């Protein structure tokens, strides 16, 4: 039930913020803060509890499973379930959700109620995506997170916001429609095979699909996910959307929306179409590597700070696709780490870009410089996250990238070596950020204030998390271990009968269900 409550709380909180925003300008942000904090605390407790009690070697990877009929005549049900991966990403969602509310605290001055409504509904959509185990419901949530994001960029963005909002919407919507086609195709094939027309993920898992059709269906899902991820050459919406969105929007885009793409591949593409995915692997890895290098080179030449960070996301997400299609436990664990650590490190960089914009009224790094003198705290934190972004050992991103590369090395030596060279490029652009923003001669004579208390809280929590993940990532690894093991098991070479091995339905009488 916790799953429904969480989505309900978010959507309800959003509506409440919208309504009360008419009366009072301060109320919506408090409502939003309370809403996401409640969700965050609930999930953290749930995680700790689950981590302590549940044996990670369980054969059944599902922690909670909730199912209720929605449109039974079409086989559509309101089916939510989470396993370790979903749980982890949900915790991340609410963590970044709290930060997003905090960092737009003073940022948003007009239509406050509607702003927080959108923010909370995006979070609700994202949470839904991470939980939905019915493909129709999944598509529904996929769209739910899209539309409020469109408003967020289009209304509260900076100068070129309308263009960016359209671009974002058209890219993700068009690719989403391809996924809808693939979902419906899968639905009918399964229905014809078994006579049972259903959108239930667990039923569809075992579907026997003729290989050539499977490839096209897989491509439908894949395009939707890689556009979201994004992978070169589908990445061009990202820099525009990121740079024009308000700070919280960039944070959620980079931290969560991109992750839904990777989640989709892990959850749907690999288990549903293992053979087709296997055939696609060399190409996917190639595009991942192209993304790593191409994104890094583009990041180097940017002068707009947010655009620069956006291109680093393209580079980092290249690692994700490289790792996913290496199909082994090391790389997949690295991918999950990368999802979490990239959300934190890039999110931090975006928040910082937002703070700089608030203070200096520019995003152009050529107009910055020498800011260390006036704000050493921000300089130090900025340095730390630039280092995280270039994969300095001891910080979370290193673990992620090292595991991905280590796993990918087994699958494809040459591509991995090229990807590793990407580490040099990441050093180049990260140091350029630090140099252009914080070091060098000071350009300004007017006073620029350092962190406020609220900002210290935001940045300290991000800093602590990235260091924690860098020095002791085991909780994250253990949480997703059952799911990743099972996934990797599907692709082990000796396991020829790939179709059915992933197929297990969750126990409906799980203890958490009984308890609630």
């Amino acid at each position, binding site marked *: 039930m916790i799953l429904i409550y969480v989505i309900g709380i978010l959507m309800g909180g959003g509506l409440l913020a919208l309504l009360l925003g008419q009366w009072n300008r301060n109320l919506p942000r408090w409502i939003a803060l309370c809403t996401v904090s409640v969700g965050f605390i609930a999930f953290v407790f749930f995680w700790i509890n689950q981590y302590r009690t549940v044996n990670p070697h369980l054969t059944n990877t599902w922690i909670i499973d909730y199912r209720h009929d929605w449109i039974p005549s079409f086989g559509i049900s309101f089916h939510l379930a989470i396993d370790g991966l979903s749980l982890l990403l949900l915790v991340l969602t609410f963590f970044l959700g709290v930060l997003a509310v905090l960092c737009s605290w003073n940022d948003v001055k007009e239509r406050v109620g509607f702003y927080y409504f959108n923010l909370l509904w995006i979070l609700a959509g994202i949470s839904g995506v991470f939980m939905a185990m019915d493909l129709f419901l999944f598509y529904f949530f996929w769209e739910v997170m899209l539309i409020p994001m469109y408003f967020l960029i289009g209304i509260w963005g900076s100068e070129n916001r309308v263009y960016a909002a359209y671009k974002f919407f058209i890219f993700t919507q068009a690719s989403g429609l391809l996924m809808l086609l693939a979902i419906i195709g899968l639905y009918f094939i399964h229905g014809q095979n078994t006579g049972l027309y259903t959108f239930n993920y667990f039923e569809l898992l075992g579907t026997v699909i003729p290989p050539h059709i499977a490839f096209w269906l897989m491509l439908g899902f894949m395009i939707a996910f890689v556009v979201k991820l994004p992978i070169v*050459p589908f990445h061009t919406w990202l820099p525009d959307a990121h740079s024009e969105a308000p700070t919280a929007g960039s944070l959620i885009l980079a931290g969560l929306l991109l992750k839904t793409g990777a989640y989709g591949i892990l959850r749907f593409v690999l288990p549903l179409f293992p053979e087709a995915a296997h055939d696609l692997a060399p190409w996917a890895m190639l595009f991942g590597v192209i993304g790593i290098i191409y994104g890094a080179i583009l990041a*180097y030449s940017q002068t707009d700070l947010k655009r620069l960070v956006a291109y680093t996301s393209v580079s980092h997400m290249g690692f994700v696709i490289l790792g996913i299609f290496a199909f082994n436990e090391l790389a997949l664990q690295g991918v999950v780490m990368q999802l979490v650590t990239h959300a934190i490190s890039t999110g931090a960089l975006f928040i910082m870009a937002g703070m700089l914009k608030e203070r200096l009224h520019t995003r152009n790094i050529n107009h910055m410089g020498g800011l260390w003198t006036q704000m050493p705290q921000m300089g130090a934190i900025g340095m730390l996250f630039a280092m995280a972004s270039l994969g300095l050992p001891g910080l979370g991103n290193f*673990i992620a990238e090292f595991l991905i590369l280590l796993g990918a090395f087994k699958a494809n030596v040459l591509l991995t070596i090229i990807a590793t060279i990407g580490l040099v490029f990441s050093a180049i652009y990260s140091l350029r950020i630090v140099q252009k923003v914080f070091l*060098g001669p000071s350009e300004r004579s007017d006073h620029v204030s350092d962190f406020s208390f609220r900002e210290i809280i935001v940045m300290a929590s991000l800093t602590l998390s990235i260091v924690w993940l860098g020095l002791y990532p085991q909780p994250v690894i253990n949480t997703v271990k059952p799911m990743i093991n099972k996934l990797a098991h599907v692709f082990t070479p000796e396991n020829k009968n790939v179709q059915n091995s992933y197929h297990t339905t969750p126990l409906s009488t799980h203890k958490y269900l009984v308890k609630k």
Partner: protein
Amino acid sequence: MNNLLWLVPVLPFAGFLILALAGKHISRVWVAIIGAGSVSLSAILVLIIGISFLSHPPATGYYSQTLWTWMQVADFNPNITLFLDALSLVFIFVITFIGALIHIYSAGFMASDKDYSRFFACMNLFVFSMLLLVLADNLLLLYLGWEGVGLCSYLLIGFWYENPVNGYAARKAFIITRIGDTAMAIGLFVIFYQFGTLAIPDILTKAPVLWQQGASIATITALLLLAGGVGKSAQLPLQTWLPDAMAGPSPVSALIHAATMVTAGVYLIARMHIIFQLSPIAQMIVAVIGAATLFIAGFSALTQYDIKRVLAYSTISQIGYMFLALGVGAWAAAIFHFMIHAFFKALLFLAAGAVIEALHHEHNMFKMGGLKNKLPVIFWTFLIGSASLAALPLISAGFYSKDQILWYAWASEGGNPLLWFIALLGAFITAIYTTRMMVLVFWGEAKTEIGHHPGKLMTVPLIVLAFFSLFAGFIELPHNFGHFTLFSDLLHQVLPETVLKAGMNNELQFQLLALLSTFGGIYVAYVFYYKQPQRIEKLKQSRFVMNLYLFWFSGWGFDKLYNTLIVRPIVFIANVNKNDVVDKLYQGVTFVTVSLYQSLSFTQSGSLRWYIMGLVIGAIIILSMQIML
């Protein structure tokens, strides 16, 4: 006492944390006490641990302490484990001891700097990372320390960040070493898939079992590790960052770019010596790189006028000697030279820093001069350091370490006469540029007035280091001269003994030749720079000499080469593609859509008659088609 090992790196780290988090609120005195005190405590702890380690050596030859499991994924489970054996003991001794002296010196040197606490925070973090590097039990933890020292080096080279030149030097250092690190990371992947672990003791025991002598996989692995070492230790072809790294404060140059960090490559190769031994080709390459580097850097040092750049090139050159020793299989000799070099090079940098500060931040040696009587303490300590660098026979420590390398360069199994000759030539050049530096700085007439004299905080560490630069050599004496082998006995617990070629027993002749080259070098410099400086002027008339001079001065043109071959093309591509050529594709789609809509909207003129005309014409066309067909 060994179980206190974790405190050795943790103390400087605690110092870093305190200074980084609360540095603003601590008075300058306390900043210095915390900064220098944490490292000094660590040094004392190392002494205690060292004594207990030597008096009760563990049965396995090493002591390890697991703090926690870093991560555990599939069969990949690196620990946070500290590992102490004779080799790492030597390194932690040098790091903490010299580190502590340099911290004390810095308390005086940086006294007037506004970012006092940031400086000590970075220095402490550096000591911590370096300790982690040499105490790491597995290659991943070593890699953490490895990158950590790179970060600190970056932070400290660019310490005076207002000047963009410093920032450039800092980034150059970080990125060039990163290139080596990347190769090393690939080496780690190879090692992991070969041995299924990254734990150093396991690798070293498994390697001779799984790999055959001269196997190509051993060569590949060794070369990848070597690439990491070459980057960090500023050897050919990645040496260009070190001279620029002198942009940092002098204590930084002393600690990072002379005494400790740059020798990380030496440590790595010594640590993984079994893999190198399995590949004679790779070992040969190590020796050749070392010889080439010491040669090239020596000539560059000869032409510099910035005192710190002379020392920087001499550092590159001396590390070249260490690589040469590693390459010919003189493992203990390389580590011995590392230790002695750390003493005298730290001394030289600190003394040079004192000179520079006394002369109002004047770096140019040609504007110094005549300081012999004005700064007596600096003069004597500098002289001792220089003597050690030039390997002045018998009295200086540098002689004992370098002489060993020269001898092994020919006499050991991997050695050959050419390597020996280059090393000898290098020794000759070293003597020239060292004497040149001494003469220009301390003799002749004074060209710049002295600002202020260095205080006790700065001179005491100099004296201590000078003491070691003189006497540390006596713990290891040549075979034919005392044959006292305290140091190599210790190291041979870890590193294999050097195998000599058959029939090499004329060590004395080699020593005499080395002695001759040193005195020859000193004499040449004495003639050219002191006795008859007009000869230099005469030489400068020649176009050829001038071009050669400029070529050497620019570090053999490597910077220019890399700029034209690598940096500029990449920057060019990046700038050309600033607006992302892929986006043009989508803009093309947009353009087609927009132009279609515009051309169609032209027909929607809003004029009713126009529409009706269209209707009528359409009707007529359809009707006439019906009639015709």
